[in-house]
């Protein structure tokens, strides 16, 4: 049911004039993709430095809360640009993207990464105090930092897999993969 609705929505988006303009213009799509990828250096670069500080890998002599607070703004700016360009990339190729197993897995990891970030921020606020100048953050924050690193590495890796066609709807007959990728037409044809 949900796969059918998503596919209908994707077809509706694909029929939009601006969606076709984005994908038809070689440079518009390339620039969008390039901006999406290059903004990694601002968003994930800043996030990883915060995580590395929690683990004591960078600048252990600078208070952890200072690093987190000072890098918060560039990180958010980076993520906002990434989400806008990411949404436009989906808008440009909606059917292909919505039926990509990698894209769906990426969205799940993205959701988990945000839940982890929310928990991490709450822990950071409640843990403020005597550990701030320690070279390594307390256990729960370290765990949050490791989970964050793993999830974001997964997000980037799955994002990199999206252009590859190993498990595209037309390349597999495995019903579980077809269902997970939302390949409605192929499932109906079986």
């Amino acid at each position, binding site marked *: 049911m949900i796969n059918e609705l998503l596919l209908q929505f994707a077809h509706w988006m694909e029929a939009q004039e601006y969606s076709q303009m984005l994908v038809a213009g070689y440079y518009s799509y*390339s620039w969008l*993709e*390039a901006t999406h*990828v*290059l903004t*990694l*250096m*601002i968003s*994930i*670069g*800043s*996030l*990883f*430095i915060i995580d*590395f500080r929690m683990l004591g*890998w*960078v*600048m*252990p*002599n*600078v208070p952890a809360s*200072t690093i987190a607070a*000072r*890098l918060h*703004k*560039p990180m958010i700016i980076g993520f906002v640009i990434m989400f806008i360009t990411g949404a436009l990339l989906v808008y440009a190729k909606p059917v292909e993207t919505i039926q990509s197993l990698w894209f769906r897995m990426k969205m799940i990891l993205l959701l988990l990464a945000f839940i982890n970030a929310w928990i991490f921020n709450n822990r950071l606020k409640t843990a403020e105090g005597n550990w701030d100048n320690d070279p390594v953050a307390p256990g729960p924050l370290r765990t949050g930092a490791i989970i964050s690193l793993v999830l974001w*590495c997964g997000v*980037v*890796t799955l*994002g*990199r*897999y999206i252009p*590859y066609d*190993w498990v595209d709807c037309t390349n597999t007959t495995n019903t579980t993969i077809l269902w997970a990728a939302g390949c409605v037409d192929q499932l109906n044809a079986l």
Partner: protein
Amino acid sequence: MLGSILSQYARSLAVLAIFLLMVLVEVLDIRDAIYPGLESFFNWMNQSSWIGVIGTTYGSVYATVEALHLLSMAVLGGTVLATDLRLLGIIFKDVPSETLVTGTHKCFGWALLMAILTGIFCAAGVANKVYFMEVFWIKMLVLIAGSCFMLFIKQPLLTSRPHTQINPWTIRLVAVTSMLIWFTVAANGRWIGFS
């Protein structure tokens, strides 16, 4: 006398020497002479070297290494931005810039090493294509220039004395140059995928 002058301006003279070398390479057509000879090496990288064979045979391995390349570039970018924006006085105003320069350098070094190693693997997988791409060669030149700039100019200069003793405009110039260099490397790398 001459020795003391040379040691005082060692970095500036090194930069001048590199610049002159580049001019000579171009004027004397050395680049054009070297380029055709490299084609067989690139073909070997792609078809015979083990990294080239793995890269061309296993798409999933290639894509995973590509992701690692992106991740190492993200870490590299994060360290460069944190340091350079501090040098420009935009962020981390309450942290001494010397602390950031020394605190992020090790992480930068690891990220650069990782980016180079994964980059070699990625290039080997498509070596027969990138050889003919102008954007690939621009990226390589800027990467070499950037690495030399970081290791032989920026880091030695910023760790040689307290930053209050360095002309503020020199510091700003170094920060802007550093950001431009790494942005150019990353942007050219992205453009290789479109070419």
